[in-house]
């Protein structure tokens, strides 16, 4: 049940936008497609909605094949029983809020749309604005109308195409919680497309990271954050420092020869070029009068290159062994002053340096 995508291919002319990807969204699961613009995430969503026609592969919704390039099956969007929220909201300006929300029911031929509309507007907290025109609504309100319209017809799946990208930061935080709550209440499978890592991490049961039309990694948000498969995923999710390291005997060294301890779990001994990932929040930053030594900790010294005051803390850029490392501290250190970075070995993870992701297909959900 849910959504099943197998070996989906979409190309425009000679440009392949989606390169044989496969994934599943289980019943009641919230899955996010995350990736930079142009990675094919929106096209994937549009193929599932039936707004784009795939060139290869198959898509099934709740066990029903809606698109199969091999056998030529293509169910038009209006017969797929979807609820979709668009990036631009696509609230029809000539209809009132209630008429917008009633639309999915009306085109199905339902006579009495009142209760369903009232329910849907109630869920998003827009009951009192039912008779307004879209032009009289704020962006956030339009967003909620779009959400109400998507759920009004009790669809089998919910699709979201970057629905929060046009909202301001504060409203985005609130609406994230709202969407999560509604999806869990309705228990329908949901596929959410975004380029915003915060949205992906905070809302999803599972995140699928895409790059250049392929799936790079998929997993629970915390796994992606702590165990990224390569530099791309590590860089895309959260902020990351990368240290150039090389193996010398059984040891790892920085570019200038300083020895460094890395997370032994990540040290699989492969042949691929690797870099060490170091999240800024796992670094302790001190002046040159650093506290006592601990053998289990890495300790590097450098110089403050730049600083940005951010309120809760100051973000520093420190030059260490030829690399620029970002780290946070609440201490006030002037530019040019010496600095000491301290971090645990298990916070320094080796990841593949490969820019091009290894294509991975055929994941079972």
């Amino acid at each position, binding site marked *: 049940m849910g959504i099943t995508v197998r070996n989906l291919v979409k190309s425009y002319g000679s440009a392949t936008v989606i390169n044989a990807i496969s994934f599943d969204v289980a019943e009641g699961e919230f899955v996010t497609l995350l990736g930079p613009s142009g990675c094919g995430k929106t096209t994937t969503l549009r193929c599932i909605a039936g707004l784009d026609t795939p060139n290869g592969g198959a898509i099934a919704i709740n066990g029903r094949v809606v698109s199969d390039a091999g056998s030529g099956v293509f169910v038009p969007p209006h017969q797929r029983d979807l*609820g979709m929220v668009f990036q631009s909201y*696509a609230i029809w300006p000539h209809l009132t809020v209630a008429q917008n929300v009633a*639309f999915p029911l009306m*085109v199905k031929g339902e006579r009495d749309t009142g209760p369903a509309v009232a329910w849907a507007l109630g869920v998003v907290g827009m009951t009192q604005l039912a008779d307004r025109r879209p032009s009289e609504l704020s962006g956030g309100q339009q967003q909620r109308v779009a959400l109400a*319209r998507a759920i009004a017809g009790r669809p089998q799946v919910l699709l979201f195409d970057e629905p929060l990208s046009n909202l301001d930061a504060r409203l985005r935080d609130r609406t994230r919680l709202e969407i999560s709550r509604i999806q869990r209440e309705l228990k329908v499978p949901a596929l959410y497309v975004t380029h915003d890592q915060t949205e992906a991490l905070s809302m999803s049961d599972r995140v699928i990271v895409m790059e250049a039309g392929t799936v790079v990694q998929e997993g629970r948000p915390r796994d992606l954050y702590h165990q990224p498969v390569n530099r791309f995923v590590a860089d895309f999710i959260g902020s990351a420092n990368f240290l150039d390291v090389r193996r010398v005997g059984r040891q790892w060294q920085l570019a200038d020869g300083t020895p460094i301890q890395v997370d032994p779990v990540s040290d699989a001994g492969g042949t691929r070029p690797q870099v060490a990932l170091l999240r800024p929040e796992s670094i302790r930053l001190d002046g040159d009068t650093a506290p006592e030594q601990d053998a289990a900790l890495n300790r590097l010294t450098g110089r403050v290159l730049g600083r940005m005051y951010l309120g809760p803390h100051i973000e520093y850029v420190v030059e260490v062994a030829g690399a620029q490392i970002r780290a946070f501290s609440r201490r006030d250190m002037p530019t040019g002053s010496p600095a000491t970075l301290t971090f645990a070995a298990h916070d320094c993870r080796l990841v593949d340096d490969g820019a091009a992701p290894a294509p991975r297909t055929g994941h079972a959900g």
Partner: protein
Amino acid sequence: MSVLGTLYVAVFTAVALMALIPVAALVLGSLRDAAPGLTGRWTLANWANLASPGVVETLLTTIEVAGLTTAFAMVIGTALALVIHRTDFRWPTAMTAMLGLSFYFPSFILAMAWIVIGSPGGLINDVLRDVLGIESVSVDIYGVTGIIFVMVLHQVPFVYLTMRGPIMGMDPSYEEASRTAGASPLAMLRRVTLPMLSYALASSALLCLVMALEQFGIPVLIGVPGRVTVLATQIYLLCRFPPTAYGLAAAIGLTLAAITGVAILLQRRLARGGRAVVTTGKAGRITPIPLGAWRWPVNLLCGLYVAMALVLPSLILLYTSLIKFFTANPFDAAFTLRNYIYVWESEATQRAILNTLIVSGGGALVGVLLGAACSYFTVRLRPTGYRVLDMLVMLPFGVPGIVLGLGLLWAYAYLPVPLYGTLTLIVLAYVTRFLPYATETAGARFVQLDRSLEEAAWTAGASRQSGVWRIVLPLSLPSLQSGYFLLFMAFFREISATILIFTASTSVLSVSIWSSFEQANWGLASALSILAMVLMLAVMSLLLWAMPGARTR
């Protein structure tokens, strides 16, 4: 096949027939040595005759008239647009309204009014001779200068209307940047504003040139008595006055259509290239340039234009319609209502009025629906062959009205379809000729309409047809209304496409006016013109009142 699929095939077929039949008929006709409907032989003589001194001279005259008209109209129209939208001119709204009205002032009525004013027996010469006693100076409108003069008056509003959008839509920061860089208002105009408008200017000039090339009403009324022939009028003369030469007319028509067609193609290319340059969509508020010492010369220019293009012609026609014999001195004149009484009692005139309303009202509806369908296919759905459809829609736009009329005349003399002598043929001619008005207005709207609005309907469970019906059409209504308005006005005024295909029972008001004037019945022609203009104003107000969408032009 789906509903939309069937509709696509139907629309494609209709547009293809409408565009290709007259053109094909012209090609065949140009190779025949007899009039349409008569048996004749194949010949190349018509094409050979294009090189005859008469035709070559006509071609040169046509180019001279159209070129000079375009040059003058561009300068005056652009100047007016800049004055109205870029300076502290006092009456921008009133001036815009006046230019809008004169845009709808039919060209052949304007020509008639100026003949009454400027012909050897007309107003100016009467005043010179009888009132001022001057014998040595006289004016004669019948000539190349007269034609160009009236055509410039007629074309200025078009230039203004095409230039005002680009001028108003220009991002003000470009101009402001030039001012902060030290440019005076005039230097800014010359070095920034006009160069940035160059695409729009070139595009407007090409369209203006096309309109001047195919202009029929003005050169036929002023040129024929003055023995000045342009290609459009020569086609008419060859078909209407013995010895007729329909084949030569067809060859000339195709030549003229080729010239205008190339100009239209160029214009389309320019318009496409220019879109990226200036339009930012940010209609900015800009500090108006102070007119200063230029204020009164500018006011005078505006007043003079309104007087010559609108007020004076209307007053003269009203006056002429109310007197028995023409005299410039109203105190000498014998006033009468006989022209209006005649109109009231004449069955033929009543039929012409009724025909005009049917053709304009009903034909515009057909046109706007067909145009909207074409645009939906070419802009949104893009099925196989949509580019061909787009070309077929544009093809007749490059064909002058008189040439289209001739093509239809040839076609329906041969084709076993009983269309000749019906109002349907007139509607067919008008819709064919003006379909791009409808496709452009509807298409512009469809392009603007965010795709997701329609997609949201599909994902919400609406089929394609249902999405069009419930979402696209309601959201495009204002543009469709404005397209209807444009078509109605164009159909109401049209004469060049009608003049060769009307019959006694399918005469329209424009033809009645023209033929009364041809019979030297200035009074009746003027009365009919006044009637036509009153009717037009009434319908205009009615449409604008009933269709708010048509107001935003």
